[in-house]
């Protein structure tokens, strides 16, 4: 069985036949759009915004990825984790959580025998993680487009007033590449976190994988370091706003580095794993 056929099998079973799981992304997108509309309305009433503005698709995406300011810890202070931003990732972790281990101890054993190579099987799963991230993100973006279309304000241009009000004027002034920041980097970070999750799921169990990546995600909110890749998709912490390391070049370097490490750890582990010792999933 070639890699191409394996990938086809994974995409069919892990993405398209599990389409109902992706609905969670659509629900998330609709709720996040409604929240921004409500916030704009409140801002107009409080006279923070001059007039009622209609948000575009990119405004909704900016609202998700605006995140939270850099955090400096004081034991006697307080801190809230950004719910909207976190949920974007947590839903994805939930979607990819069980497929690999289920497949391995289910019908996947036959596929693995046909594939004749554990390496090919593992590569196929890594490609599946990327494809799931792509489809999940596409579902969110498409839902946002439909939401805008139904409300008669379909637009892709960024509204300067909304962006300034929500994030920072610097983003506009520094000429941030919104296409990369809003569409490419989230996908890259989703993929990297997905790689960490499936590797840990394979090493231990899917629930430990979920716990680990969720902790990793929340750590990104608390600690400003490039190894915690969540920092790369927080607009308020991007190089254009506060300086620092969070630019697209570093994002590519660190994400690919972490994903590669996860890939090799998973590969080495999986080559030696006793897959006949079935675990009750």
């Amino acid at each position, binding site marked *: 069985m070639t890699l191409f056929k394996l990938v086809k099998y994974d995409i069919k079973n892990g993405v398209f036949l599990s389409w109902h799981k992706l609905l969670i992304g659509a629900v998330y997108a609709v709720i996040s759009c409604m929240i921004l509309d409500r916030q704009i309305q409140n801002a107009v009433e409080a006279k923070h915004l001059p007039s009622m503005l209609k948000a575009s698709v990119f405004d909704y995406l900016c609202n998700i990825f605006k995140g939270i300011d850099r955090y400096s810890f004081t*034991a006697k202070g307080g801190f809230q984790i950004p719910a909207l931003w976190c949920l974007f990732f947590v839903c994805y972790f939930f979607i990819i959580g*069980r497929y690999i281990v289920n497949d391995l101890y289910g019908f996947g054993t036959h596929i693995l025998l046909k594939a004749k190579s554990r390496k090919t099987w593992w590569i196929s799963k890594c490609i599946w993680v990327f494809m799931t991230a792509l489809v999940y993100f596409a579902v969110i973006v498409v839902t946002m487009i439909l939401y805008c279309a139904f409300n008669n304000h379909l637009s892709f241009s960024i509204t300067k007033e909304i962006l300034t009000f929500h994030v920072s004027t610097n983003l506009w002034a520094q000429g941030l590449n919104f296409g990369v920041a809003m569409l490419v980097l989230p996908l890259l970070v989703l993929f990297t976190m997905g790689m960490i999750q499936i590797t840990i799921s394979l090493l231990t169990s899917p629930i430990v994988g979920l716990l680990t990546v969720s902790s990793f995600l929340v750590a990104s909110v608390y600690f400003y370091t490039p190894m915690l890749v969540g920092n790369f998709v927080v607009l308020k912490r991007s190089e254009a706003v506060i300086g620092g390391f969070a630019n697209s070049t570093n994002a590519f370097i660190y994400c690919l580095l972490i994903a590669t490490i996860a890939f090799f750890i998973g590969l080495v582990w999986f080559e030696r794993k006793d897959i006949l010792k079935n675990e009750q999933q």
Partner: protein
Amino acid sequence: MKLLKEFLKRGVSTAGFKTAVMISTTLAIAQILQTHTKVDLGYQYPTSLFEIWIGGEWASYANAITMLVLPILACLPFSTSLLLDKKSGYLAQLYLRKPRAKILAAYYGTAFLTGAIATSLPFATNLLLNALIYPSLLPQTTTFTFLPSLRGLFIELFYTIPWVFCLLYICIIAIFGGCIACVGLSLGNFVKNKFVLLATPFIVYFWIYFITMQLGLYKLNPYVFLNPSQAGNAQMPIILGYYALMTGFSSIALFARGLKDDLI
């Protein structure tokens, strides 16, 4: 009672319980490492145990993770048992020997107790470990360093007998954890996968967090009201409402379905 005893023995020896204890201890120690400050002996009121323990602040990473993964901690020890016993055929064997209601009640009781222990562990461990470092000075309103506001829950106890306040609040968290564990257990009648069973309470909890935060309904957010520092003033009717909702759902889902379930 004998069955409950047997189940409890089994509940505290599962890999899930051991994992929960390990996570709890790690979080308790991580919180101390992040918040460690020298006890001020100058002109300021010295740092008190009741402002620095994991339930006295809401600034540390360990605090956020503990509050966030509470449902997973609760469900890890015993919530998957019903599902796994169904799959292995052990439940059918039990049904042959004892009345179903008794067996399901034993499952329910064990899930509640193990869930309660697992969720209270990080708080209890952290409080005791911090007590080894910081003096348990009586909280003072005038220092403005103690987080619970004067309109908070059990606030009189906090400023008079803080140990009792901490104990009471840990009990509130434990009961909440026990209820979540029961919800997880009852999901065993509906889902077929261990991961889905363990992750569903966590995802629902996160969605509640998300929606209540966006709508500004902090008082309805378990992440906020379960934290003893009470960033939003906790209210007893809301806490009791959550208890009733979770107990009601889990009892109906477990008993109504479990008593009629055809295992063959």
